[in-house]
Each structure stands twice: as structure tokens, then as C-alpha cells.
């Protein structure tokens, strides 16, 4: 049967639904089948009457929901948002409330089945895959696709404006818009990329570079050797020559002196194969590249190149650094050598990257044959770029672009092709993911997407890039579906799976934000220690001193200004580095890596996704371990660390990244932390706060000026009935993490006062004494909620659209699979890829 559209009811009743899900399809007010109606009256209504009508019927209308306030059963059935909320609340145990009798499992089943079949009108024999809007490549996908297609790196995130997000992800088709500005950037980007990636000549002088660090006697670890004219250096390298011919050796070196004069002098000599080819006395001067090159006829063998610095002025003559002015010096930066050859044209080799675009070693010598070859080149390229075969008409138009370019004098074959390639990279078939449907389709059935589309969905889902050769080859032969399982396993084992971690987990857990989130380490720690006031006073004092200095300077009182400066310097020195922890970039990156590595580890080892919530291990390096107070982790390398039995860490909720991105710049936010768990772990987000209620935490003071603790302020808030229904759900969750400050540091005190016990209770009744027990509850008792939540999030990411009513059966199936396989990650990934919404396309019936 055709999917019915959800018509807005003209009913007077304002349905403020507990959970809002936009864009949902469902049964229309007048589209209810008669047997569904009968089923509702006979089976469903009695359950509702027994368990729900106390609050949502017979004149009661809590939360603005009443099941008996509709003109007809059909109208009630048409309220897709309402039924979606019923389903969620029922399953998550939120309704009926904890103190009311539970709905028996059999009755839940009756309700579930009726909601799916009756209210949503879902047809199990022809499941509705939902609608996926034409997706533009987002910045990440664009950059990756360019890398794989063109072989060059393009900084899409620096060149293109940020993509808008929907449902928490930046790959949502409906939200990814195109503007003239963006298209202009795509066109400019295409020019840059093609110019960088496509060689214009088939053969070129072979060349290789030897970095400075590869030389024997190199004092430093870096590619560029910084050689002082005060120090003797002798750097040698043996060049291996395989083909006889003439070679050109270039020494890449630059001399430069400090801004102020320095007396260093030295003789610098370059040798090639024992022959001195350059010698000069160098001294203090502005930056100047040294032009050193030599040509040499070589038979196969090994030849030495050598770079020598012989000082003429002793290091004892070096001036002492003057305070405030810095060091003086004269250095030679030695980047190594470039060896080019054989220079004889017949020995030239294929230009690197040439065969990526041009299948033949050379274009035809007769330009009359160019168009035919151009078709071949462009057909091949456009097919790869479009991720599906390019049709003949398109190839013809591209060839015309190349031909037009050839009309300009001096334009070679390759140059003409680059014009056409630029056009391909700016075209909609490249920038958008065009999907076709399988041709052998039963009338009235939603068709499967075709194999090319499947290859693209797979590769953009798991790798955020275009399909590789193997996927494309299988799709071209029509054998991808047949080999789906094996291909998924191959893709999961590939390093490119890191993209799923970075882009999915990065947005789901917001680890992308940790590197930029504003946290003021100084204030956070002052707050814990209760020294905020002192900090403020200190700042005031500095400011006052600065003002006085300015005033004294203006007044021409140099002596007073100097005295004040001294006072300022002393005051500063006293406070500098007083046991302060920096929330450094290094630490933030380690936090991001910690979350990513856990996600990656679970994928690779195919462990249970429940480890995301609760695990007895994590990934640390020395700075992060020190931050967490975990001993015996040395060095900068991140690695798997088994946690001490009493450690509160393990799982994403107690990771630095999560704790920081759910905090305010100056302190923790139990509300944000609670919401984070409800939204991203339990999948039961609260509705937004009602209008005119200011964000509660903004106030920590009562009217009489006494400072309330955050906990007191929250408690006060929960006394208000308007606030309590949601804050009762989020506050206990968020407060459980109060022992972690805004940087994720463990703390015993806030504002100098001990933090009260963090024991609490879930809205579903389960009690916990501390954060470890809370994590355990979430990973075990509330496991199904987590499975549901993660499945919805990952499905949203995979499809590029938000969850709809028609996805309920697919999601249920995947959750069932997770349950059977104890949360194994592969069950989730395979489940999503094999699901109806991933495999099919809604037919336009």
C-alpha cells in the first residue's frame, strides 16, 4: 500500500508531545483501515484505559496528552508524533511513571504492534525505506574524495564554509545547501586541485631529494639542518646511481643572520664525488639562498656528496645575548640535495601521477587523433568522479571543452584535458551523490538502490569517501550485494574506518569540539579551591597598576612609572605558575584521541558497544594519565591502559572530552551533563525548557545575596512543578559527575567546600551510589535504551536523514540483533547496512 501522508489535524487540542520528532510519516486522519480500527477498539483501548487514562483520559490531560480527546479513532491514530512518543516512553520505562503498575510485556507487545501497523500504517510485506534527499558532499567527504580521486590533499575545511548540521550531524541531505558563494569556492577549488594534481607533460627529468637529516654527520633530527657558522660541520651522503648519464646535483642551502650584527664567519665548501664544486666565505647577511649546483657524468655506482662548514671565528667571540634583544647569530639552513638525471631526454621517466589520469604513456603524436583519446581519458575519469558510469553525451561535452582549449596556440593535449577535468569537479554529479534504483523492480514495491549507489552508501558511511577500486569493480559487475558481508568486513579492517570514528563519534560524542571548547583553566581551578575572589582582586590590582603606569607616563613622571612597573613585575612574579594546570592543546588532543581510540578499538576487536559506557580500561599517555591521576604511564604515546579497580574512569562519560564539552567555560554544568546522557546514551531527550524560564544555572545567588551551591540551586529548581518533571530526570545524572571539574580533573571540593555525596536515582527507579554504579546501570539495566539510542544515531549518520516512523521496524530489528549478540559492534554495522532504509529507496508511487 502507498505510504500515507501525515495531515495536520484541525483539532482544537494542542498536543505538546513529550518527544518531538520532525518530518514523520504516518496514518492520515481518514486513512485508517477498518480492521486496524477494530483492533484499536478491542485490544488497544482497554490497555490505554487501564494504564494511561488516570492521567491522559477521562478528563485528565497531563502534559497536554489525552487519548480520548479526539473526534475519531482515525484522527487519534493519525497523530504520528504522539504514537512515536508513546512507543519511546513505553520502551524506556518512562511511562507509566515509576510508582504506577508496570504494563505487562504482552500488553506492550500489543501496543507496539498496533502502533507500527495501525498508527504508522507500516506494511511488513513492502517495508517503506523512507526518503533520502540528494546529498551534497560535505567538507570532510569532499576533501577525502579529492584525495582518492586526484591524489592530492585539499584543505576543504579551510577553503569552504562550514556545513550546517541537522539531527546533530553535518551530512544530512536536507540541510546541506548550496549557495553562490559555495559554488564559487567549488569552482576555484577545482582549478587549484587540477593545477596541482594533473601533470601537463608525460615525461620529465627524474628527480629525487635527499633531506638534510639523511646525511651522515647531521647534528639534528629535522629535515632542515640548522648549521651555525661558529661550529664545524661535515655532512656526507652516498648517492646510488643505477643508470649511466649526466646528473645535476643541487645543494639546497640558505644563509641568514640575526637582525643585529654578528661577527661569525666560515668557509663553506660543497663536494660532489670528491671534487670541490663550490667554495665561499660566508658572513653575517640577510637571508640569501646559496646557488650551488654541479653537473657530473656518472656510470652506475655510488658517489659521495659532501657539505662542509669550517669556522673562521671562534665561538668565544660570539656576543653575549643582551636582555630583551635576543641572540645574534649567523646560520646556514641545509635542506639536503636534489639529484636530477639522467638529463638526456631519452632517459626521462613518466611524470609522477601521470598515469592516474592518462592511460597511455604519451598522447597520439597526430592531433587529429586527440579527440578519440580524449573521450577515452574523460570517460574513465568522469566515471570515477561521478561514482557511476558517465554517459556518452556528457563525455562528448567534456571532449568539446578540451577541443576548444586546443584551439589556443601552444595548448597541449594534457592542458586541454585539464579544462574538462575542472568542469567535472564543479559539476553536480560530482558534488552530489546521485543514486539510482535497481531496474528489476516489482511494480508497487520499493526498489533496492542500484549497485553503484550501494557502493557509494557503503564507502561514504564507513570511510567518508568515494568507493575504492574493489567496491567499484564489484558494483560494475553487479556483484556487490552478493559479497556484501565480506566487503563490510574488509572495510572495517581498513585504516580508513578511522573516518567513521572521527566523523560519527566526533559528532555523536562531540569530541570534535574538545579542541576548541572554551575552558578557562585558571578560573575553574580557582573555583574548586575557593579562591575566585582573590583572583578577581589580583586582576583588579594589575589593572589599577597598569592604569597608574599609563597616567604616570602621560604626566611625564618617568621615575614613578618605573617604580610602578617594578611593583607590577613583582606582583606578577609572585603569582606566576602557582601549581597551575594548563588545559593545553596537547591535553585536549590526548582527550580526543582517548575517545577515538576506544571507539576504534571496539570496532577492530568487535567488542560490545556497551564498553563505550562502562569499561575497565581506557587509552592514555603520560600527560592524560597524570591528569586522571593514574600512575605508571610514561611517554607521549597513547596506549591501552588497564584501569585500577577503584578508578572512576573508563567509558566515554568520564573521559576528559565529554566532561569538558558539557561544561561552561568556568565551571561544570550538571544540567548539560544530564542532558548529554539523556540525549546520547539513553535516547530519551527532555523537551526544551519552557519559554521565559531562564537557564537555571545562571543563578547561583539568592535574592539576599547569599551564594548558593550549584546543587542547592538545582534543588530549588526541582521544587517547581514546571521544572521538576525534566530536572528530576537530568539533574541526578549530571550531579553524579560533580567530582569531575570542567577540565575533567577529579576534585573533592568546590568553592573550597567538600562535594556532597553524589548518590541518586534514575527516573526508572534504579539507584546508584556513585558514578561507577551509574555507568554500570546504564550499560546493563538500561542496555536496551542505549542500543536503541546508538542505533538511531548511527542510522541517521548512515542515511543522512533523521529517523522517521517508517524506520521503527528496521531499528527494532537491529536492536534485537545487538541484544542477541551482546552488543557486538559488527552486529550494529552489519545490521544498519543490511537494513531496509539503507538498501532501498522509496518508490514514487
Amino acid at each position, binding site marked *: 500500500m502507498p505510504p500515507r501522508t501525515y495531515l495536520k489535524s484541525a483539532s482544537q487540542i494542542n498536543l*505538546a508531545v513529550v518527544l*518531538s520528532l*520532525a*518530518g514523520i510519516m504516518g496514518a492520515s486522519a481518514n486513512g485508517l483501515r477498518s480492521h486496524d480500527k477494530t483492533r484499536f477498539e478491542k485490544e488497544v483501548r482497554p490497555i490505554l484505559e487501564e494504564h494511561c487514562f488516570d492521567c491522559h483520559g477521562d478528563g485528565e490531560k497531563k502534559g497536554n496528552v489525552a487519548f480520548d480527546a479526539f473526534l475519531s479513532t482515525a484522527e487519534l491514530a493519525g497523530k504520528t508524533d504522539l504514537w512515536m512518543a508513546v512507543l519511546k516512553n513505553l520502551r524506556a520505562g518512562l511511562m507509566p511513571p515509576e510508582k504506577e503498575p508496570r504494563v505487562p510485556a504482552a500488553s506492550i507487545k500489543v501496543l507496539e504492534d498496533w502502533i507500527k501497523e495501525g498508527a504508522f500504517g507500516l506494511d511488513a510485506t513492502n517495508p517503506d525505506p523512507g526518503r533520502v*534527499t540528494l546529498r*551534497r558532499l560535505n567538507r570532510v567527504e569532499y576533501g577525502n574524495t579529492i584525495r582518492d580521486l586526484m591524489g592530492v590533499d585539499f584543505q576543504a575545511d579551510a577553503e569552504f*564554509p562550514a556545513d550546517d548540521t*541537522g*539531527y*546533530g550531524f*553535518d551530512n*544530512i*541531505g*536536507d*540541510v546541506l*545547501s*548550496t*549557495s553562490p*558563494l559555495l*559554488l564559487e569556492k567549488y*569552482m*576555484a577549488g*577545482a582549478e587549484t586541485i587540477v593545477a596541482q594534481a594533473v601533470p601537463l607533460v608525460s615525461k620529465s627529468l627524474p628527480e629525487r631529494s635527499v633531506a638534510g637529516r639523511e646525511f651522515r654527520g647531521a647534528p639534528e633530527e629535522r629535515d632542515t639542518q640548522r648549521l651555525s657558522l661558529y661550529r664545524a660541520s661535515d655532512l656526507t651522503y652516498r648517492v646510488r646511481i643505477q643508470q649511466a648519464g649526466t646528473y645535476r646535483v643541487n645543494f639546497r642551502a640558505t644563509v641568514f643572520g640575526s637582525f643585529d650584527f654578528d661577527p661569525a664567519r666560515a668557509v663553506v665548501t660543497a663536494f660532489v664525488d670528491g671534487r670541490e664544486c663550490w667554495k665561499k666565505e660566508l658572513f653575517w647577511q640577510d637571508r640569501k639562498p646559496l646557488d650551488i649546483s654541479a653537473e657530473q657524468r656518472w656510470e652506475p655506482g655510488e658517489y659521495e656528496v659532501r657539505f662542509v662548514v669550517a669556522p673562521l671565528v671562534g665561538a668565544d667571540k660570539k656576543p653575549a645575548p643582551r636582555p630583551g634583544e635576543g641572540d645574534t647569530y649567523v646560520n646556514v639552513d641545509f635542506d639536503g640535495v636534489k639529484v636530477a638525471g639522467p638529463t638526456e631526454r631519452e632517459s626521462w621517466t613518466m611524470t609522477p601521477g601521470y598515469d592516474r589520469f592518462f592511460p597511455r604513456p604519451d598522447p597520439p603524436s597526430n592531433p587529429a587523433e586527440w579527440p578519440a583519446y580524449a573521450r577515452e581519458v574523460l570517460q574513465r575519469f568522469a566515471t570515477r568522479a561521478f561514482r557511476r558510469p558517465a554517459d556518452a553525451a*556528457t563525455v562528448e*561535452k*567534456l571532449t*568539446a*571543452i578540451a577541443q*576548444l*582549449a586546443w584551439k*589556443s596556440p601552444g*595548448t597541449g593535449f594534457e592542458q586541454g584535458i585539464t579544462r574538462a577535468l*575542472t*568542469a567535472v569537479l564543479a*559539476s*553536480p554529479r560530482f*558534488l*552530489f551523490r546521485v543514486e539510482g534504483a535497481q531496474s528489476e523492480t516489482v511494480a508497487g514495491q520499493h526498489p533496492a538502490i542500484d549497485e553503484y549507489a550501494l557502493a557509494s552508501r557503503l564507502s561514504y558511511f564507513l570511510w567518508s569517501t568515494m568507493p575504492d577500486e574493489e567496491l567499484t569493480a564489484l558494483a560494475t559487475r553487479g556483484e556487490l550485494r552478493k559479497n556484501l558481508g565480506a566487503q563490510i568486513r574488509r572495510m572495517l579492517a581498513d585504516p580508513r574506518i578511522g573516518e567513521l570514528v572521527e566523523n560519527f563519534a*566526533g*559528532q555523536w560524542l562531540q569530541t570534535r*569540539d574538545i579542541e576548541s571548547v*572554551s575552558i*578557562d583553566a*585558571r*578560573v575553574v581551578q580557582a573555583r574548586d579551591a575557593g579562591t575566585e575572589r582573590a583572583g578577581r582582586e589580583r*586582576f583588579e590590582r594589575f589593572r589599577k597598576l597598569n592604569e597608574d603606569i599609563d597616567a604616570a607616563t602621560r604626566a611625564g613622571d618617568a621615575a614613578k612609572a618605573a617604580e610602578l612597573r617594578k611593583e607590577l613585575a613583582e606582583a606578577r612574579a609572585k603569582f606566576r605558575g602557582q601549581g597551575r594546570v594548563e588545559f593545553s592543546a596537547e591535553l585536549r588532543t590526548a582527550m580526543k584521541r582517548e575517545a577515538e581510540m576506544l571507539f576504534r578499538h571496539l570496532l577492530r576487536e568487535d567488542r560490545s558497544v556497551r564498553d563505550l559506557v562502562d569499561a575497565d580500561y581506557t587509552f592514555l599517555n603520560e600527560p592524560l594519565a597524570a591528569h586522571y591521576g593514574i600512575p605508571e604511564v610514561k611517554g607521549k604515546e597513547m596506549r591501552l591502559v588497564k584501569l585500577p579497580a577503584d578508578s572512576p574512569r573508563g567509558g566515554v562519560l568520564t573521559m576528559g572530552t565529554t566532561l569538558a564539552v558539557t561544561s*561552561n*567555560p*568556568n565551571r561544570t554544568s550538571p544540567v548539560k551533563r544530564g542532558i548529554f546522557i539523556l540525549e546520547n546514551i539513553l535516547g530519551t531527550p527532555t*523537551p*526544551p*525548557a*519552557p*519559554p521565559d524560564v*531562564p*537557564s537555571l544555572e*545562571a*543563578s547561583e545567588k539568592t535574592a539576599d545575596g547569599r551564594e548558593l551551591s550549584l546543587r542547592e540551586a538545582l534543588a530549588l529548581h526541582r521544587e517547581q512543578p514546571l521544572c521538576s518533571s525534566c530536572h528530576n530526570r537530568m539533574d541526578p545524572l549530571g550531579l553524579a559527575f560533580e567530582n569531575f571539574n570542567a577540565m575533567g580533573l577529579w576534585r573533592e571540593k568546590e568553592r573550597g567546600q567538600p562535594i556532597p555525596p553524589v548518590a541518586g536515582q534514575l527516573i526508572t527507579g534504579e539507584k546508584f551510589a556513585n558514578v561507577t554504579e551509574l555507568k554500570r546501570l546504564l550499560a546493563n539495566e538500561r542496555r536496551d535504551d542505549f542500543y536503541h539510542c546508538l542505533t538511531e544515531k548511527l542510522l541517521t549518520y548512515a542515511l543522512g*536523514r*533523521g529517523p522517521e516512523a517508517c524506520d521503527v521496524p528496521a531499528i527494532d530489528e537491529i536492536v534485537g540483533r545487538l541484544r542477541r549478540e551482546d552488543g557486538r559492534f559488527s552486529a550494529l554495522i552489519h545490521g544498519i547496512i543490511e537494513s531496509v532504509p539503507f538498501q532501498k529507496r522509496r518508490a514514487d508511487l
Partner: protein
Amino acid sequence: MKTSMNLDASSTSRRRFLRGLGACLALPACESFLPRAGAASATALGTTASGAPLRMAFVYFPNGAIHEHFWPDGRGADFNFKRTLEPLEKVKGSVQVLSGLEHRNAEPGPDGAGDHARANGAFLTGVRVKKTAGADIYAGVSIDQIAAQHIGQRTRFSSLELSADAVRKSGSCDSGYSCAYEYNLAWRSATSPLAPEPNPRMVFERLFGGGSRGDRARNFTQRQQQQRSILDFVLDDARSLQSGLTHRDKDKLDEYLTSVRAIEERIARAEQFGTTPDPEIETPAGIPADYEQHLRLMFEMLALAFETDSTRVATFLMAHDGSNRPFPELNVAEGHHSLSHHRNDPAMIDKCAQIDRFYATQFAWFLEKLAAAKDADGTSVLHNSMIVYGCGNSDGNRHTHHNLPVVLAGNGGGALQPGQYRTLEPAPMCNLFLSMLDRMGVPPMERFGDSTGRLAI
């Protein structure tokens, strides 16, 4: 690359048409034309009575304002700035402070919470944006874009969209609203926001070409020629693709097609404007780490665009509504948004006011720059501009959207009477917008957003 550009007869004729269009409408470049003698019609498109370009810009600051510090003392021409707007003292004669304007469509209706998204989304559109996390964003055409549609063809760029929000939050934005409402001010259509550019280098290169001074004009022209050669192909490709698509997919491709046409028109137009201006400054390096520097660079780009008459319509989102940026430079460690819910705590109010003043200081710097820039008719660029400085949130603490903090800067080429503090009867912000459109010479619109009439400005 030296290639001849036109691919087939039909594209040639389309260009010829566009060129013709440009030729009829184009004004000579800024420095070379003479003021028209006498006071000509005040409704000439995008032009002042003296014949100079008339510009309009909209500058957004986030999270409302502390009213007691924002509104001046006194009224009419006899007024004194208070703490927040005091930085505008030097240009006092060129600004008017307007109280009483409102955006009722930013207020909560059945759509519940999400005042920041609504305030930001309604600011230039005047409509109640659709509450959605993604699938079907819907606002309205913004006022700047209506102006741009009419007068855009007179300049090299029909409009300029800037922001100083370089980093976007991941995850969803305000209370179930798509981030699109918060990070965009300008909407070309109800479903297509115009993403603003935060990188000053990009803005500069787009306006004047890349490379160093002296090479820019050539680079700019070369790039345009290259672009033209591919436009025909991609347009064809889009059209052939379109035939097989269903509803929403078609919309997405329409955005693409519209963009292609916009670039075509711009290129055709650029050819009518002779040499590309080459400002005597270094190309900016990129986004500076310091926020104040960033804001000033963006303002400088905007000033350059106006001075060179590269565009007459611009929007600048200094920070999106709901921005929770802390201000360590002011010793304010809390985020701006958290602070704005001050619950009448004096210390928090004080910090908010500091931030309000910080934004006003940057705006004042911009106005002073425009005041110092001489325009073609001998007055200043500021004289020949209408610049709205405001926020879609009024009281950040209570999330109100009436009595919005608004400053209207510039003399509108002599059409406005700045130098006063006007306390208006409550009226929709859109009334002001309609009157500004009239001043721009746009054919009178009956309504815009929730307008109820016009504001006598």
C-alpha cells in the same frame, strides 16, 4: 589559461543578454562619475540624491543587551550615550538610537523554547522560522537579499555576507532548531541561507583577487574567465540530472542551478565595471587568534567593499545569538550566553554590559572608518549609508523580543536625520526595514515579514 570561452550559440546569446542588462543598469565605477546636478529623484535605485552609491548593512550582536546601560539619557536630539554606546560618541551626529522596535515572531509560540534560534532567524526575515532540527528548514527571504535582488546588479557583488563565528559547534543547536538559523543572517530564499564567510583573507580575495598588489586585478580576471568556461557544462549537467529527480531532490539541485546563474550574472556584470579595484593594503593572512582583531579585520573588509563600491548590501553576524564565548580579554571567564541569564545579579549584569560595550566599540571603530572615507560626491561613505546595528533578542535574561536594542547609523545620503535618540511607539522591526527599502529606491513593497506599515525615518 588562454582558452576562448563560449561553447555554443545558446550560451553566447544568454551572455549577450546578461551583458546587455549589465550595460543598461551599470553605474560607472565609484571615483569616475560626477554627482548629478541638482537633487534628483530620491528613489533612484541604490543611489543617493547626489548620485553617489547608497549602501545598506546589518550588523548583529548576540544575546540582547543590558537595557539600563544601552539606552541613552534624554531623547530627541538632546541625548547622552550611556555606558554601552558611549564608544559611538565620536560619530554621535551620524547615528540614531531607536527604541520600541520588536520582532514578535521571535517570541515563543506553540513552538516553545529556542529563542536564540528564532531571534537570529527572524532578525532580517521577520518571519517565524520553522522549528526543525534539519529535514525542512524554512525561514523567509531576508531584507538585505530583497535589496540585493533589486540593486545587486549595479555593483560587482550583489551582496556580502560576513561572520566572525569561525568555529561551529557540532551537534544540534538551540532547542531543536537547525543550526542554519543561528549561523546565517541572509536568506536568498526561504530554504536557502547564504553562508557567511568568516575568513578575512577569503573575503578580500573574492572581492579583489588573490596575490600581491599589482597582480590582483589580472588574477581576478583570469579566474573569472576560467570559471566561465565551465559554467555551461555544469549547467547542462544539472539540467540533465534534474529530469530524473523527485521533489526534494529537485529543490536541492535548484539551489545549485540558482547558484550557477548568480555567478554567471556576476561575471557578466563584472565585465561592465572595468578594472577591478586594487586596495592599497596587504591581503589579510587569515583568521587572527584575537577576537577583537578578527572583528576589526572583518569590518575593514566591509569598509573596503563599500569604499570601492564593490557591493552596496552587506550583513555581518559578529556572533550568533546564543554565543557562549568567554571574554578573557575583559577578564570575563563565563560564557556570554550563561551571563546573559543574569537573574538581576549585579556582577553578572556588569560583565554583560562590558561585553555589550565591547561589541559597540568594534562597531564604532567601523563607523569612524566609514566617516573618514571620502565618497564620490564629496561626503563620506558613512553619510551615504544606512547601517542597522542590533540584536533579535532584547533582554537576554528573560528572552524578550520587544524594545530591541537598535542603532541606525548613517545619513542615508541625506535622507535620514541622525543625531537623535528616538523613543518610538512599539512597532515591528520590519516597518523600519520597509522604509529602508524605500530609501534604497526598491519598488515599494506592500509588506515585509510582520510589518504593519512604515516607519518615518
